[in-house]
């Protein structure tokens, strides 16, 4: 049963990812990325990371991707602008890159798929593994300093975004 859910989630995640990069229309692309993220969240829950899984849906699908959608709507982007088919890379580069990626993946599968005694690493998780309380306890004790640094990072990002996206007089005249 667990394996069936995993396979479903994995197929949906990979399929959503592929569809995402193949779409011409950015709005459809965002929606496919949300599908992928929900599938990843399913895998998180399977790995007992309930809190982080919920966070993934709330923060990523709920906030970050809505920001993407909002910007796409704001810029009034249409798929037609990218309708003409033309890739950025010339043929040899593409072939080299494709071969390199496939080799890399194969090397990874070879390392990972037959590692010998991986299954013995599996331990029964404690009942509250990955719940909100134990994660929060770690976050506010052992990792308090990185956590506080995160707030500074977010502050800098907010200020930076506001400063950069502000429209000045020249833009106002052009009506953008």
């Amino acid at each position, binding site marked *: 049963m667990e394996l069936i859910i995993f396979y479903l989630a*994995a197929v949906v995640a*990979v399929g959503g*990812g*592929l569809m*995402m*990069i193949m*779409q011409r229309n950015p709005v459809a*692309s*965002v929606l496919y*990325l949300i599908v*992928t993220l929900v599938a*990843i969240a399913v*895998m*998180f829950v*399977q*790995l*007992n*990371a309930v*809190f*982080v899984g919920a*966070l*993934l849906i709330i*923060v*990523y699908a709920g*906030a*970050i991707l809505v*920001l*993407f959608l909002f*910007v*796409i709507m704001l*810029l009034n*982007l249409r798929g037609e*602008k*990218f309708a003409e088919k*033309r*890739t*950025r*890379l010339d043929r040899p580069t593409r072939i080299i*890159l494709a071969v390199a990626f496939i080799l890399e*993946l194969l090397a*990874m599968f070879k390392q*990972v*798929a037959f590692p010998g005694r991986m299954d013995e*690493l599996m*331990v029964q*998780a*404690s009942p509250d593994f990955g719940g909100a309380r*134990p*994660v929060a306890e*770690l976050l506010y004790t052992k990792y308090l300093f990185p*956590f506080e640094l*995160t707030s500074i*990072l977010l502050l*800098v*990002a907010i200020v*930076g*975004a506001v400063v*950069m*996206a502000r429209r000045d007089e020249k833009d106002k005249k052009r009506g*953008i």
Partner: protein
Amino acid sequence: MVPMPYYLIVGAVLFVIGIAGVILSRNLIIMFMSIELMLNAANLTIITFSRFLNLMDGHVFVFLIMAVAAAEAAVGLAIIIMLFRNRETIDADKFNLLKW
């Protein structure tokens, strides 16, 4: 119980899809979303290892990565808006001032 390598393989495949998106797409927003996809593939790997080592530290790292992704999205989208204001396009091929 799903064996651990399965999760790692899904993470690797998603990461490669993200790389392919960054390299092949010409739409800046889709390139940006591919970066988000790569971050999430890394998150999946971290969560997997954290589960199989029975340590919860990985969950904290994923939390921090999500905060970084949020900051990155805010700044990146602001940059995209600025680029769009200057050129009225977000086609990555049109931004070639620094290309020699």
